[in-house]
């Protein structure tokens, strides 16, 4: 048992899921692992545990981060707790064939080594059913485009923390245009110094303020794209 005060086994499913939201909020990785195991033993599908307990819990964390109630250290602790749960669920999700929403190539742009936000986006996108190919940090334009083409990805995601590196996003978008393949990809951008006006100016499809917005935006644009393709 992760904590002497509370036996998680005594909680019913609804209470346990709510407790998981709180444990994610408090960054208690061991408690999350224990709760995931309990729900699996009770016959929950890995997909339901992921979406109803972990992703929803991180969504709440994201809301309070946006509102200035939580700060980066707390969000990192929450993310690490979610990772602990994901480590149990990931192989089970593969086995059970959880639905895949789309494929995204994502990385921090050239000259920039900051990846906290990008890693959160990766985790939340994966939790939302996207296949995520993480290019890591300091990526030149070829990394994005070649990988997106090779992997047949629908989405290219770019992240930057520095005002000096964020203009590189335009280099990637302009290269996509030069190659005549801009419309083949949804381009999402994010990072602390960015805003919507910047995303519009460089020709991105959307600016994503945080990981939760990235997920919602990606889902919406993928769905719109699929609708457009279906009507053709």
């Amino acid at each position, binding site marked *: 048992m992760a*904590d002497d*005060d*509370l036996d998680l086994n005594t*909680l019913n499913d609804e*209470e346990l899921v*709510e*407790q998981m*939201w*709180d*444990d994610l*909020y*408090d960054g*208690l990785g061991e*408690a999350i692992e224990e709760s995931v195991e309990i729900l699996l033993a009770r016959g929950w599908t890995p997909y339901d545990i992921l979406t109803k307990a972990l992703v*929803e819990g991180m*969504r*709440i964390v994201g*809301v*309070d981060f946006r509102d*200035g*109630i*939580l*700060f*980066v*250290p*707390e969000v*990192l*602790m929450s*993310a*690490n707790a979610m990772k602990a749960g994901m480590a149990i669920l990931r192989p089970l999700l593969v086995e059970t064939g959880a639905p895949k929403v789309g494929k995204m190539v994502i990385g921090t742009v050239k*000259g*920039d*080594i*900051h*990846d*906290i936000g990008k*890693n959160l986006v990766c985790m939340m996108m994966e939790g939302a059913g996207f296949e995520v190919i993480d290019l890591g*940090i*300091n990526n030149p334009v070829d990394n994005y485009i070649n990988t997106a083409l090779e992997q047949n990805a629908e989405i290219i995601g770019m992240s930057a923390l*520095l*005002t*000096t590196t964020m203009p590189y996003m335009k280099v990637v978008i302009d290269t996509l245009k030069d190659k005549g393949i801009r419309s083949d990809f949804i381009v999402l951008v994010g990072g*602390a*110094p*960015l*805003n919507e006006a910047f995303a519009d100016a460089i020709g991105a499809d959307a600016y994503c303020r945080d990981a939760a917005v990235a997920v919602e935006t990606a889902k919406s644009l993928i769905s719109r794209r699929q609708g457009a393709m279906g009507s053709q």
Partner: protein
Amino acid sequence: MSEADAQTSKISPARRGGRAGRLEAHVRRGVRKTSASATLNAWSLTPGDPATRTLVIACGALIAELQQVIRLNGLDHIEVTAVPADYHATPDKIPDAVAAKIRAAKQRYAHVLVGFGDCGTRGRLDEILAQEGVERIEGAHCYAFYAGLDRFAQLHDEAAGTFYLTDFLARHFDKLTLKALKLDTHPELKSDYFGNYTRVVYLAQLPTPERLARAQAVAAWFGLPLTVVETGVAGLDDWLKAADRTSADQNSAARAAK
């Protein structure tokens, strides 16, 4: 507030308080914050003529160096006031804090300058300065104007994963980095924050053996090599003198117009 949000506010026997405990603490902090007023605490070396006095509103990390520049150049009509350096942990606070000081200062000073870089404010500080008609020192942050913009770009190109120190940041590393990022209580987050860093560069304004030892201790904490670059305070010196010349010209023009 969504249904799920509302549910989480009333739930369950949380171990450390969960969201409900955090929200309660947040409200308590908010009450305390509202009781603090944005006062103007300027430090003057030698008060001058109010019609020609200049106030520099600067990051607390720059105050000692600014006072030195003022003293060495005999710029006795310039005063400085600080915005707390730890606002860098929550940079959204910086523009409003600077704006409040500008508005308070305009009644009492002929000229106002701002000693901040963009400092993670995403251009919002510049928007406010444009509205107020106030200039700031050029550069994204203090590393850039201490090193010089070209030299800083060169340092960044050499190693994007560089953690920068100044005299102030070396001295206050424990508070401004370890404590602010909660690494003092959660050292396991170190790799989340700094896993991609490859070196520490100490931009030394007025290096002393003690400050160098502090920088070495910081580099040892990271487990990374240390590079020392002696910058002095020329960046601040050049900026302040140039801004002061502009202010003097404006004073002359104002007198001629009367």
